[in-house]
């Protein structure tokens, strides 16, 4: 069992920031475990979601921002829907991932690369371009054999376009990203 010295490691500022950014009151969690019971991702998590909530109450910033669970949460909304205290737990998970990203922490390399490839595609074309997205993911991660077995299944169906379906004015969407960066959101 891990023993945490709260006087030494409790980061009150971190708790306040998560509460502010997620709009959720972390202290409401009474550890019933409903969120974890319904979470389909517990089998790949290093910290189950009710423990994420507990560690959050204890202000354990470093442990949380470096855990894998926050990258693997699929935002399936089971926890949020079933929490008896109406905590939007999925929003808390999202918020922790935003913070980890801003601090340059990334424990699930492939997941972050996928997200980045997706958004780059949207920034460039205005729409997600599936083929380009896969190629960009492979370039980022060096995983050359990603889904190569699916090619003979999907290519003859004529569903994967080799060229992006751009919007008429991709610059309008690129501008959203540009302004977002300029605002330097913290």
């Amino acid at each position, binding site marked *: 069992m891990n023993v945490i010295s709260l006087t030494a490691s409790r980061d009150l500022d971190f708790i306040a920031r998560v509460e502010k950014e997620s709009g959720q009151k972390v202290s409401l969690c009474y550890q019933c475990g409903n969120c974890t019971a319904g979470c389909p991702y517990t089998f790949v998590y290093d910290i189950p979601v009710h423990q994420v909530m507990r560690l959050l109450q204890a202000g354990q910033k470093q442990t949380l921002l470096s855990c894998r669970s926050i990258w693997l949460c699929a*935002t399936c909304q089971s926890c949020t829907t079933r929490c008896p205290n109406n905590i939007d737990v999925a929003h808390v998970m999202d918020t922790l991932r935003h913070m980890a990203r801003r601090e340059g922490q990334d424990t699930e390399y492939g997941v972050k690369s996928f997200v980045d490839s997706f958004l780059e595609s949207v920034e460039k074309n205005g729409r997600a371009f599936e083929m380009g997205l896969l190629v960009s993911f492979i370039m980022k991660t060096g995983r050359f054999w990603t889904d190569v077995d699916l090619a003979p299944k999907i290519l003859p169906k004529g569903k994967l376009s080799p060229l992006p379906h751009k919007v008429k004015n991709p610059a309008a969407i690129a501008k959203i990203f540009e302004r977002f960066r300029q605002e330097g959101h913290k």
Partner: protein
Amino acid sequence: MSTRLRYAYYPGCSGLGTSKEYDTSTRAVCQALGMELVDIPDWSCCGSSPAHTVDHRLSSALAGRNLALAEMLEDVRAIITPCPSCLTNLKTAAVRIRKPEFAAEVNRLLDKPVRNTLPVKSVLQAIIEDVGVDAVRPKVFKWLTGLKLAPYYGCIMNRPPEIMEFDDHENPVAMDQLMEAVGAEPVAFPLKVECCGASYGVARRDIVQTLSGKLLDMAALNGADAMVTACPLCQMNLDLRQDQINSANKTSHNMPVFYFTQLLGLALGIGEKDLGLSKLCVSPKALLDSLEARAERKAG
């Protein structure tokens, strides 16, 4: 609000690619049911789940651009989309933008501010609420009698209920009702709202193999001939990845995974070109042929 069934339609990026047949069958079914779809002019990506994992303002701005464009269309009663992931983004943005401070932050990123004047619904919700199951029945051209289906809604079509505001969040029934209306038989399917593995197929295939594997196992166990879905990502995980799932889990599923609009379209007599049944990876041909044979035997 308009009395006509005229909608601002948001096709979503996958409708241009991996879920083409969902888009074409949706358009054809809506037309057959008297719903007029007007594509949102120059719509762009709603941000899907990647955007909200980076920042909620960015995500709401990407979705919000489309809400603002839809608001320019005249005489439409709602924005509708076939894809639950797009639906979640559009609806979540619309709900969050009700807060003026958040709206101000989002509008700063946009050329044209969102006014939030139109309701956002899934195509499924619009069919159920605005057309109605009873209006579908008299239009049936071919009954899907004897077709046993596991209705799979996916995790976010109905959750969280405060945002999605449609059907039941633990046991949704909209697709069950529509399939029953055209003569098919929904089987019990307790995993209706469980996650299929979402977009982790590429980065962590093991996750999809486990979660979608469970769905296929449960559908087979409960005697389904096929699964029926309303989500491009769920459909792709279950259909395109079925062989990957089979080899990882040592199973031998050969379970067709339809979009509900394909089956509805089949019953309404819509042609093969729009339904795109040949675009499914697990071929439904043998199943549909045996259904015909069953129906003929019954008639003869």
